[in-house]
């Protein structure tokens, strides 16, 4: 079928506006990206973060006094250093390089050699601020490339950079420069992500506004960055229950589709609706499933739903395990948990209600807030690819216990039906967000992951850092109170490794006054620390 643009990067800037479909939520996001407040935009893969950023960029540049600069930190160019300062300088150099290119493209600066049309004497103009910026970039580059021994103290600091940017703005009548960091935090390890958010905060001046796209569940902000104070936080949420949901997604597809597909879907609206609901608010998934359709008919739609939502959708999730090697076991467990436990349980839940003649269906589940840390981590990772979506974080369930409510992508549940399309409409109309199976804090399916193993990577550097991590005293665990730390020490548990190697049962047995709740809390503290580290 027709080839669609599945990624914003594949669309030339000139074509963005023609393909753009925005609803009132999107307008709110674009407004936030264009405002003077820095903005973080959260959304799972393929939900349209980059697209909205591009639209904001185009609108910002309609004002001649504003400049929008896209910065890409690509994985392949990432420097490998444990020196935080070097990493910070590397990011700063990349950011400023993007700015100098943009200034040149906008006609606000001229390349130093000017391609030989001016004689050397005439082109010699050492006093421009663009030169300053280039000199700063060069100094940073030299510092982290290690070509020469450079005294870090002699490097320009962030204030120098901000001053240089301010001069560029005043000289060129620019009011504002917007930096867009797309997928920024994604390629970084947690420690690098913290550095990134420091830079994000540090760069703020009346002239500079930073915006970044981030994924749910896999972003670490660090201590100096406070989400509520340092930025506007926006989430891309496209709930299948929204009244304009179908029209919105139809507009997105029809902007790109050829006349034949449009006609076919206009004649068989329900087929389109089924595919749109299955995508669970994700434009890329919808476009991909339509692109892979053989024909616009019921059997093709059923085939693609089963093929995609039972199998292909997991490819990205599994890749995540390859990327975050230390997390492989948790990524794989998360898939098993969702496929073999959660989805099956939801299916049974729906089946029972159907047999009883109750007109209620569910794609939701609830997990106790005090579940083991690896379970929570696995769920966080599942929300990164958008297979599940966290709806609310403190929902009361049976016995008034608090927990988190998640939504499983509609397609993943519907694909279990023999004829997904024929069930879709009724299933959707009967959805009730209040009906869902629950997974308590001691659910038997957690047993496979509570004692997850460490150290699957063979890399020496990884092993060495892991060792030093494990050797740290439990005093570093901020989640524990002093009383709890003393109790642990009293039982001979002195390091993170000691704590990690003990099961909850053995903590209950060996420490007086520690029951299941405290044992879980103590284990979670050590595990959270390790998991965060292992993300790299």
């Amino acid at each position, binding site marked *: 079928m027709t080839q669609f643009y599945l990624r914003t*990067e594949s669309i030339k800037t000139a074509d963005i506006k023609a393909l753009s479909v925005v609803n009132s939520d999107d307008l709110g996001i674009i407004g936030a990206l264009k405002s003077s407040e820095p903005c973080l935009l959260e959304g799972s893969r393929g939900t349209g973060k980059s697209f909205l950023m591009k639209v904001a960029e185009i609108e910002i540049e309609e004002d001649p006094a504003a400049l929008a600069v896209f910065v890409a930190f690509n994985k392949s160019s990432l420097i490998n250093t444990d020196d935080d300062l070097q990493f910070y300088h590397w990011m700063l150099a990349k950011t400023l390089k993007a700015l100098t290119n943009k200034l040149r493209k906008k*006609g*606000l600066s001229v390349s130093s*050699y000017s391609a030989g049309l001016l004689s050397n004497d005439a082109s010699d103009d050492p006093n421009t601020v663009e030169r300053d910026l280039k000199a700063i970039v060069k100094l940073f580059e030299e510092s982290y490339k290690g070509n020469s021994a450079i005294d870090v103290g002699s490097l320009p600091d962030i204030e120098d950079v901000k001053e240089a940017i301010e001069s560029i703005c005043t000289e060129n009548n620019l009011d504002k420069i917007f930096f867009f960091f797309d997928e920024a935090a994604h390629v970084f390890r947690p420690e690098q992500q913290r550095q990134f958010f420091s830079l994000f905060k540090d760069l703020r001046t009346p002239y500079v506004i930073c915006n970044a796209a981030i994924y749910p569940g896999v972003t670490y902000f660090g201590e100096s960055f406070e989400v509520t104070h340092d930025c506007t936080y926006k989430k891309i949420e496209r709930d299948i229950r929204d009244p304009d949901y179908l029209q919105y997604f139809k507009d997105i597809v029809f902007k790109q589709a050829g006349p034949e597909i449009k006609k076919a879907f206009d004649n068989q609206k329900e087929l389109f609706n089924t595919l749109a609901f299955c995508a669970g608010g994700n434009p890329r998934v919808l476009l991909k499933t339509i692109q892979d359709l053989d024909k616009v008919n019921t059997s093709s739609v059923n085939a693609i739903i089963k093929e995609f939502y039972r199998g292909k959708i997991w490819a990205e999730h599994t890749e995540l395990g390859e990327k975050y090697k230390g997390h492989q076991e948790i990524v794989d467990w998360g898939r098993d948990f969702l496929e073999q436990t959660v989805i099956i349980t939801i299916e049974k839940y729906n089946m029972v209600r159907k047999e009883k003649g109750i007109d209620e269906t569910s794609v939701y589940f609830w997990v106790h807030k005090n579940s083991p840390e690896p379970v929570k981590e696995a769920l966080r990772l599942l929300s990164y690819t958008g297979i599940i979506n966290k709806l609310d974080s403190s929902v009361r369930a049976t016995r008034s216990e608090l927990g988190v409510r998640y939504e499983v992508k509609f397609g993943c549940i519907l694909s279990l039906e023999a004829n997904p399309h024929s069930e879709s409409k009724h299933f959707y109309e009967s959805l009730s967000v209040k009906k869902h199976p629950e997974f308590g804090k001691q659910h038997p399916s957690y047993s496979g992951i509570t004692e997850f193993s460490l150290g699957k990577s063979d890399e020496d550097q990884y092993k060495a850092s892991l060792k030093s991590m494990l050797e740290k005293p439990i005093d570093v665990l901020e989640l524990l109170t002093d009383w709890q730390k003393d109790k642990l020490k009293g039982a001979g548990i002195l390091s993170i490794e000691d704590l990690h190697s003990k099961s909850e049962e053995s903590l209950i047995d060996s420490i007086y006054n520690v029951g299941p709740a405290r044992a879980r809390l103590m284990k979670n503290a050590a595990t959270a620390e390790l998991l965060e580290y292992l993300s790299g």
Partner: protein
Amino acid sequence: MNIEEYLSRLNDESNNIFKKTILYRDCLGEAHHSSSCIYEFSENISDSAEKKILQTVSSQLESATFSACKGLYRQAFVSLRLALEMGLASAYFSVHKLELHEWLDGRGDIKWSSLMCEKEGVMSDRFSKAFFSDFDENMEEYRGKAKDVYRKLSEYVHGNNETWESSEIELSFDEKRLDAYFESTKSVSEILMFVLSCRYLKSFSQDALETLEFIPEEMKHLGYVRQYFGGPKE
């Protein structure tokens, strides 16, 4: 009116055109950026003759824009066409050393038909297969673009009925013509960047690729280029 007065009046008129054109800062900036990118690209090529040709291409592009600013539209298009030919020729010569030396000696010419040859040219599948096979996917499309822009530019160089009308040669500000120039510059730069990337990217070190941020920026719509620079997959 003597010859000095006559030329001075032409110069005044040209300067008036310049004042109007200089207001098109975004387009002028983009044209300058493109020629700078070609220069920066050339700095990573080890063969000095190939490098020098590309640096001349960069100068050609600058001089084309300057001619356009002064209202010398025909000259601008001539320079632009030359930049396109030479840019593609540098890729062609990089695999035909004998012809390179004959051309440097003045014994050979750049033949557009050889550059565009579907089987042996720099925009053939054979070429991409040898240097960066993923470029196959878009080779035909870009070859079509190259032929198209070359034909348009040639109309200004050789002249057709429309371009040889005296009103078209007269020195006066012509917005339509200026727009056509900026459009053509965009196409020429895009085609050159496409062919040069196909020819050289795989031969560049990681450090060199690091300095070429403008390539993933300008060509990120091509999935394989984006991925080669560590960007996201399709």
